[in-house]
């Protein structure tokens, strides 16, 4: 087990270091394969760990591998220890598996970019950080991994570092993630203060003794941990970085901002379930915010015209489902959806990347159309991903989303409202997903699509930033001159095909009343949960939810079909009628403006105040000026005594000796 866990972690790290150090020595193309190989090794080791775990008895499926002690003093037990239990193995499998496919995709997609080696070094480093996060056996290592993925995310969002919008987006993501990091660290402190240990398993065993139900300190700690989870998982109101993060290359969006990093918050809540079950107030807050996020993001997704941002808002919305689920103790539902979402969302991003490459970097849906015939493979993948996302049976998303809704509804009381809102969200999900697909693939073929049908890949007359239209070149720091589409590259095609199959059949692990693989597999992690075994939706709820989900999904597709294929004039008419609401959604519910007014501007004002008043008057004037003034005045006085007149010195000497003599005479008498 030790060997497997270390290989899982070290393979990506070694990959990152080797690629980083040999970027001149080895041919560039090799780095892509090296990076991909490292992740495949890691994935294989994860499978090994999985099989090893399955060989053990149910009670022994929580293995802690203590590699070494980092610090063990005065009550702090920071160890480099890895926890291998079903939950972490599950996450490791999803992360390394999807990462491996996305690396494979990137081998072609990023070919021709001048930063090819750097890209793979960053990407491997990200996978290492993410695996460190999910395998951590204590808060300490978790926070390290947590910060590392934030840094990797920053590096990859700003990958095209000469693009102004990309660097701005990277900074935004990093700042918001640091807000979350601070929340996580402070929350950890609250918990650590009472439990006296950073270790997960030792701490969880003490939770019920040390904390009474809803104890203030625990609720505060859990809420702060939720701040960390929300910042990482892009939940309202810390979500504004995720749509901007789409400035990064598309494989980055697929890997970090859809499949893995943004689900870290969900993992965190599931991992810390004993704390949240002891602090139901915090869990309820989380569930409500998750539900709010899924609705807010879905409404924005309905109006956004940027292809990648539609999927980004969809990601936010789907993570809202997961957060709602894990905060309502529907752990299997949340984690199941995490897995299927990783499959179909990565697939959707890959297909979107293929379309964007065919459009020569253009991302605006308004300028797309008619790619159906030009790119049949991409279209097929997009349809599979879209069906899975909309929750159409028998695709994977259908089972996972309905598992969430049924389990949340089974919590009864007000959780039922959350489940109903979840169904509303499911309808909107179908509408915005298929709006995107219909707009990109149906209608009259645009010029790039026509060229592609004739066998040529469209090249834009000049390279521009798709967001602002600024002119760019293709040197390092900007996207490369070549672009590659799934139809022509085996590695892109292969990665997408595997994900398409997984997105289609991924649901079989947890079909109500048929299979309970995931439930049984995760059981050892959640054996101390008070809901895990008892929370069981009734048959009416299960089948009713499935029926409602399927019907709403199909209805959403039908609405999208009617609006964007049959009657393309309709959306404009509706938009004109609901101009206010449309504007509200297009401006993303004014969250950016709100944060700008409430936080950014006051801080900027405070900074200016500090610079102009405090710095200038107090620091420069009083401290620096006062000190130097005193020294200058003192030295001027001393300098004046140094006249160079010998007789003057002699007189001073005389005066001094006389004064000394007088002093002794007076003190002696």
């Amino acid at each position, binding site marked *: 087990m030790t060997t497997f866990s270390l290989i899982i972690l070290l393979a990506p790290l070694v990959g990152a270091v080797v690629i980083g150090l040999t970027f001149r020595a080895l041919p560039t193309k090799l780095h892509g394969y090296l990076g991909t190989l490292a992740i495949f090794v890691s994935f294989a080791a994860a499978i090994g760990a999985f099989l090893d775990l399955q060989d053990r008895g149910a009670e022994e499926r929580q293995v802690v591998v203590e590699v070494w002690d980092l610090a063990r003093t005065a009550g702090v037990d920071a160890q480099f220890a890895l926890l291998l239990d079903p939950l972490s193995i599950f996450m490791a499998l999803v992360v390394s598996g999807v990462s491996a496919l996305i690396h494979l995709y990137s081998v072609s997609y990023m070919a021709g970019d001048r930063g090819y080696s750097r890209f793979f070094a960053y990407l491997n480093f990200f996978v290492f950080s993410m695996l460190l996060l999910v395998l951590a056996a204590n808060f300490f290592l978790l926070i390290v991994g947590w910060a590392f993925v934030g840094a990797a995310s920053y590096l990859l969002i700003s990958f095209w570092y000469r693009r102004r919008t990309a660097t701005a987006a990277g900074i935004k993501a990093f700042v918001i993630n640091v807000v979350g990091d601070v929340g996580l660290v402070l929350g950890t402190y609250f918990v650590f203060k009472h439990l006296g240990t950073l270790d997960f398993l030792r701490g969880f065993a003490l939770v019920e003794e040390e904390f009474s139900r809803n104890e203030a300190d625990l609720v505060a700690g859990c809420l702060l941990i939720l701040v960390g989870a929300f910042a990482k998982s892009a939940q309202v109101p810390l979500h504004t970085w995720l749509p901007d993060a789409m400035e990064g290359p598309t494989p980055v969006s697929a890997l970090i901002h859809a499949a893995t990093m943004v689900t870290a918050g969900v993992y965190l809540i599931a991992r810390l379930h004993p704390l949240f079950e002891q602090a139901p107030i915090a869990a309820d807050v989380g569930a409500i915010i998750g539900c709010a996020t899924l609705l807010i993001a879905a409404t924005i997704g309905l109006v956004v015209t940027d292809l990648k941002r539609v999927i980004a808002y969809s990601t936010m919305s789907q993570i809202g489902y997961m957060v709602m689920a894990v905060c309502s103790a529907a752990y299997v539902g949340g984690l199941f959806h995490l897995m299927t979402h990783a499959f179909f969302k990565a697939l959707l991003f890959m297909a979107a990347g293929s379309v964007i490459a065919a459009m020569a970097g253009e991302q605006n849906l308004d300028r797309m159309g008619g790619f159906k015939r030009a790119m049949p493979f991409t279209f097929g993948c997009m349809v599979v991903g879209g069906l899975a996302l909309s929750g159409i049976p028998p695709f994977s998303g259908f089972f996972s989303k309905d598992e969430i809704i049924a389990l949340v509804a089974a919590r009864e009381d007000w959780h039922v409202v959350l489940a109903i809102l979840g169904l509303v969200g499911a309808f909107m999900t179908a509408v915005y997903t298929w709006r995107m697909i219909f707009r990109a693939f149906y209608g009259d073929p645009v010029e790039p699509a026509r060229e592609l049908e004739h066998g040529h890949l469209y090249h834009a007359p000049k390279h521009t930033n798709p967001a602002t239209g600024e002119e760019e070149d293709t040197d390092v720091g900007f996207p490369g001159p070549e672009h590659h589409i799934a139809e022509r590259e085996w590695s892109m095609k292969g990665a997408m095909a595997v994900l398409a199959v997984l997105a289609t059949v991924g649901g079989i692990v947890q079909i109500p009343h048929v299979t309970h693989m995931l439930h049984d597999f995760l059981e050892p992690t959640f054996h101390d949960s008070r809901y895990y075994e008892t929370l069981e939706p009734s048959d009416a709820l299960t089948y009713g939810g499935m029926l409602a989900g399927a019907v709403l999904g199909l209805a959403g597709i039908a609405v999208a079909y009617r609006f964007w294929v049959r009657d393309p004039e309709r959306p404009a008419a509706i938009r004109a009628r609901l101009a206010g609401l449309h504007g509200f959604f297009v401006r993303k519910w004014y969250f950016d403006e709100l944060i700008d007014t409430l936080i950014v501007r006051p801080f900027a004002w405070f900074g200016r105040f500090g610079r102009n008043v405090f710095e200038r008057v107090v620091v420069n004037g009083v401290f620096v000026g006062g000190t130097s003034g005193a020294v200058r005045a003192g030295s001027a006085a001393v300098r004046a005594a*140094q*006249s*160079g*007149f*010998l*007789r003057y010195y*002699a*007189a001073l000497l*005389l005066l001094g000796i006389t004064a000394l003599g007088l002093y002794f005479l007076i003190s002696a008498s």
Partner: protein
Amino acid sequence: MSIEWYLVVSALVFCIGLGGILTRRNPLVILLCLELMLNAANLALVAFARAHGNQEGQIFALIVMVVAACEVAVGLGLIVAIYRRRLPIDVDELRELQG
């Protein structure tokens, strides 16, 4: 003869030397005045030695003479060097050493 008279003479000579140092500008005269001050101190030392009836004061006076000889050697050397460089023989003019 009581010791007071010796001390009065010593103090007078010392003050004459001091006054010379404070008022005169010629280094040669200043050296002379320094000698006066040192010898005033010698006079007091010898007087005290006699009053106490032991030899320590006399030994001190001898040591002071040695020091005075050294000082004169250095001081005269400096004056000769100044003269050779045709610098003014005036301590107020020679004040570049103030740093």
